[in-house]
């Protein structure tokens, strides 16, 4: 059994809206070994995205501790977390979230600006990442010149270009048609199988979840 790369220990998370406290996670524990492809399914508001945010250190737990890629995420400062994210976390968004004023290559290059790589080396990495997602011929295209599926592939290229330890995917097929969704899932599966990436994916889509090694059904802050 591989060492866990993500570990939640009795994590609770609640938000305060006005005078009301809304509990999203309750005493939640989870261990994800290195190289696993885990899908988390559940209805809207069940706390799926919160899990991704907590792993990436974008949000903090109300209680409990989270370890990921060698650090106690919940105990780091903002700047240290940002450095750690740049090195260890790749994030794939439902709505791609590409920067519209940058080309596909420039979008993919963004995480590498935080590294010490020279411009020429960065470009090699960008070419490799875009080649891996099958977009070598769209390098100089702007997001508005790409289809939804192509945009998501650029998003995946951006997520993997710095060779992160963990790939987090938040509804990666949620905004795509069936064909594009299948292509994206095939790509994520390839990344998992060929590059042994640890992937944590949140999805509504049972077809997408079927590509994962393991599926976790989640509701009202707890595993069903």
């Amino acid at each position, binding site marked *: 059994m591989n060492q866990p790369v993500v570990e939640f220990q009795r994590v609770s998370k609640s938000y305060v809206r006005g005078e009301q406290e809304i509990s999203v996670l309750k005493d939640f524990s989870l261990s994800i070994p290195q190289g696993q492809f885990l899908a988390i399914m559940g209805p809207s508001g069940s706390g799926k995205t*919160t899990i991704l*945010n907590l792993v*990436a250190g*974008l*949000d903090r737990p109300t209680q409990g501790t989270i370890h990921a890629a060698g650090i106690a995420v919940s105990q780091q400062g*903002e*700047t240290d977390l*940002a*450095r*750690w*994210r*740049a*090195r260890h*976390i790749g*994030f794939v*968004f439902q709505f791609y*979230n590409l*920067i519209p*004023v*940058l080309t596909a290559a*420039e979008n993919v*290059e*963004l*995480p590498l*600006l*935080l590294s010490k790589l020279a411009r020429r080396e960065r470009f090699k990495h960008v070419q490799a990442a875009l080649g891996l997602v099958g977009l070598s011929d769209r390098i100089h295209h702007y997001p508005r010149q790409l289809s939804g599926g192509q945009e998501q592939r650029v998003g995946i290229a*951006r997520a993997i270009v710095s060779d992160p330890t963990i790939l987090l995917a938040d509804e990666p097929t949620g905004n795509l048609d069936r064909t594009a969704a299948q292509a994206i899932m095939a790509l994520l599966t390839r990344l998992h199988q060929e590059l042994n990436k640890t992937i944590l994916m949140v999805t509504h889509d049972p077809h997408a979840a079927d590509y994962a090694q393991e599926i976790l059904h989640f509701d009202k802050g707890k595993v069903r």
Partner: protein
Amino acid sequence: MTLGTLVIRNLRRHTFRVALTALGIATVILAFNLIVTTVRAWYAGVEAAVPNRLISRHAASLSIHLPLAYRDRIATLNGVTGVTYANWFGGVYRDAKGFFPQFAVEPASFLDLHAELSITEAERQAFLGDRRGCVIGRRLAALYGWKVGDVIALKGTIYPGDWEFVVRGVYHGADAATDETWMLLRWDYMNERRQQIDPDRAGTVGWYVIRIADPSLAGSVTRSVDAEFANSTAETRTETEQAFQAGFVAMSGAIISALKLLAIVLNGVTLLVLANTLVMAVRERTKELAVLRTLGFRPSHLTALMTGEALLIAGLGSALGIAITIPTTYIFGALVAAKLGNFFQHLTLYTSTLLLSTSVTLCIAVCAAAFPIMTILRDKIAAGLRHTG
């Protein structure tokens, strides 16, 4: 690609908005530069003051004159190396608009003590040799087209009557700060006519100019001159030439203060305009900025991005502002000259003024960037990713 590329691309999203903001900043820079230029013109006399010269006048008022006999007593005081005197003549050329500074002076000593008024030896001798002679500044000569040998007819306001003076020399200022709009006429000629018109004031002088051996002696010589004439019928008030000139400026203190306040207000406008543009940009890009933070961009990177945008807009505005300031100052100078004659002879746009306005604007840009930076860093990343709109 660099962070700079992202800064430039972000600015190109809303070129019209950026252009309007830069134009707003340019307008403020223009107004700021004109105000600073005007205030500097006001202080030109103070800046031109020579540190080893003192001015001694009647303690009660400049309009009350001092006896000529004081000259020899001042000359004997320790630290004094030269004394001369002058009167304000106050004539007008043609009409009231033809006003410029005219001083009745003792020619040899006055020119000796004012080495910054540079004339040829032949002109100096011609002035010394002609009681109706006068010496005029280069700018004054250029304004009226006067040259050596011309006769200038003035109407006296303090000393009524028609006065005629022959131009015997045209002086050049030794440096840019020297006032080149003066007319120097001879005190003995004025005094001779004054004996007929106003015999009570004949033989008196408006003020003494005292040259001291060293500027560090200013305090002691000032005290000894005033002590010399204490308890007399005409007590003196002695001060450095700079303080004397500053006293004239102080008479316009309210206007100058208002202009300075206006310059500060204008910079406040720049701050608000720029901050507003940046805050709008950040609001529109809330989600993108959250994405950047998700990718690992640190607070320092986001600070650099926003500061870069602010500096670039401010830089564009400054460049545009300087480009329109240069011709506008000339036009402004011409309009002022047409209305006020030579009142502002030093209405000159200095490089230091342009540097000042640009530096102030760039500093303001950094301050303006602080508003959106605080907003970005205060917002939670997860909330930013959920942002719509």
